[in-house]
């Protein structure tokens, strides 16, 4: 084994979640969750509301301790070294954590103190981040006067203040318009590339989840599937055909008997996965052309992955 391989094998994961369970007053929020996020990854955690994303986020941030199992961040267990774990994390909360009554500079300065920074090095870091995140002209404005997008930038800068190796973001673009969301993710990508930071984020948006290098889909507190989003989508049997017909149940039964394929009847019509979608589509149009009112075909999406993994429609 060469030296590089030895280092890779012994390097702890940025995040290792080992069979954790957590409940609120006996009601399970997470059940036997296992995840591993490698250093440098952009790791997404996708799930609908109530799937356990925020509970998992709190466990990772050492704000909660699991009822069962173990979470480690860069090999450190919060149960033994909570302060050390917290020092390794840069955290962006869904609802924000800036004090709206203080100025941007004051927020950053006080946050710096909490992470052990002070004096000239803290002043220099604040100046660097203000330039990097383009809010240098707003340092002396109170946070309450900032727009939502700018406030998120300051939140991200605050999380980066102590140069953490791992960023943890809980639905960080909640409340932002699509353009601001896109800019936010461009910044995250830039930080990852430049500083080699691992970023772990929760989301309920497919378009955000698909950006991740590795994705875990949560459903009712359990991990439904973990993989790279592209691999997940490829694992769905080829392309997806959506049909609307004059009688979905009747047409679905006929398609099943004639073509021996799985047909899902959904609120939006019929959904058929096929490795040979083009040929099947031609056959369906030929056989049911007079009963089909609309048709579309495309590559499978994370919505299809979610449906396959959980048997449910993502809501």
């Amino acid at each position, binding site marked *: 084994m060469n030296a590089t391989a030895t280092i890779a094998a012994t390097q702890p994961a940025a995040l290792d979640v080992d069979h954790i369970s957590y409940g609120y007053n006996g009601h399970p929020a997470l059940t036997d969750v296992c995840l591993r996020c490698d250093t440098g990854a952009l790791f997404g955690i996708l799930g609908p509301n109530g799937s356990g994303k925020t509970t998992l986020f709190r466990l990772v*941030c*050492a*704000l909660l301790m699991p009822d069962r199992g173990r979470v480690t961040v860069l090999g450190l267990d919060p149960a033994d070294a909570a302060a050390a774990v917290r020092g390794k994390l840069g955290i962006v909360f869904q*609802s924000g954590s800036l*004090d709206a009554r203080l100025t941007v500079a004051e927020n950053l300065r*006080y946050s710096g*103190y*909490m992470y052990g920074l*002070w004096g000239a090095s803290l002043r220099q870091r604040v100046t660097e981040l203000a330039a990097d995140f383009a809010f240098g002209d707003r340092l002396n404005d109170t946070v309450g006067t900032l727009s939502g997008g700018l406030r998120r930038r300051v939140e991200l800068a605050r999380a980066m203040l102590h140069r953490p190796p791992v960023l943890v973001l809980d639905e960080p673009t909640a409340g932002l318009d699509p353009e601001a969301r896109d800019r936010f993710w461009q910044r995250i990508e830039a930080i990852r590339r430049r500083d080699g930071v691992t970023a772990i984020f929760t989301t309920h948006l497919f378009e955000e989840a698909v950006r991740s290098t590795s994705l875990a889909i949560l459903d009712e507190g359990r991990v439904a599937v973990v993989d790279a989003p592209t691999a997940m989508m490829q694992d769905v049997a080829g392309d997806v055909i959506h049909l609307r017909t004059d009688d979905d149940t009747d047409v679905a039964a006929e398609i099943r008997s004639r073509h021996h394929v799985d047909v899902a009847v959904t609120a939006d019509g019929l959904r058929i996965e096929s490795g040979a979608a083009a040929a099947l589509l031609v056959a369906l149009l030929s056989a049911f052309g007079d009963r089909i009112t609309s048709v579309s075909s495309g590559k499978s999406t994370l919505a299809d992955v979610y449906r396959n993994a959980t048997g449910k429609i993502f809501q």
Partner: protein
Amino acid sequence: MKAIALTTLALVSREVRIFYRARSRVVGAFLQPFVFWVLIGSGFNASLNLAGAEGLKYSDYFFPGILLMVILFTAIFSTITVIDDRKQGFLKGVLASPAPRIGIVLGKVGGGTLLGTLQGLLFAALICTPLVGLELRGDGLVRLTVGMAGLAAGLTALGLLIAWQFDSIQGYHAIMSVALFPMWIFSGAVFPVAGTPAWMAVVMKVNPLTYGLVIIRDAFEWPDGVVVEAAGPAPWCWLAVFGVVAVVVATVRISGDGE
């Protein structure tokens, strides 16, 4: 130690900045006890003769009690913000940082102590006006400052401990009405211990604010014939025990909590 000092510095500094930016809070902090003192003091001046303090104007007797109220209310308003901080998210940021929990408690207590003591001293400056017929003893200013600081520290730690239990300001208000405000009434601020029913005398004896008030009252010169309990070592010790226990219990409580 550095981490504790920096956390404390951050939270004390934040507390002071927020206080002075909230103009209504600055004005209210002075006006509320002033109005209270004028109305109650004037109302009882003509009709009340206090046991052991015959011949003393009630408003003068009541003045140290109002200083105690300034400190109590500052502690309450300073710690009630914890509930808001939790809702707004600031507290999450603090708790998710590696800041030592003792630093968080000391920061909050330090802020409340600084503000309470400064407001108490500002209010005490009324003795320089004809409104108050009291003067400080030779070492009165030192006694008053240290005594008020000790009280403010203990009360802020107690307030923090209470605020930590609640998600709503209404819950805190309920405790304020049934526990904190009665503590002030049963401290001797409104009426002296002498002449009270036995059960009330017991309550007043175990109330830490009673000892704080003894220290504050003993900082002033009192007219001949007025009996005021001297602040020997016992009240100072009680006050120190109250402050230390409140800080330790608050730290233990907060350390056991993620959010």
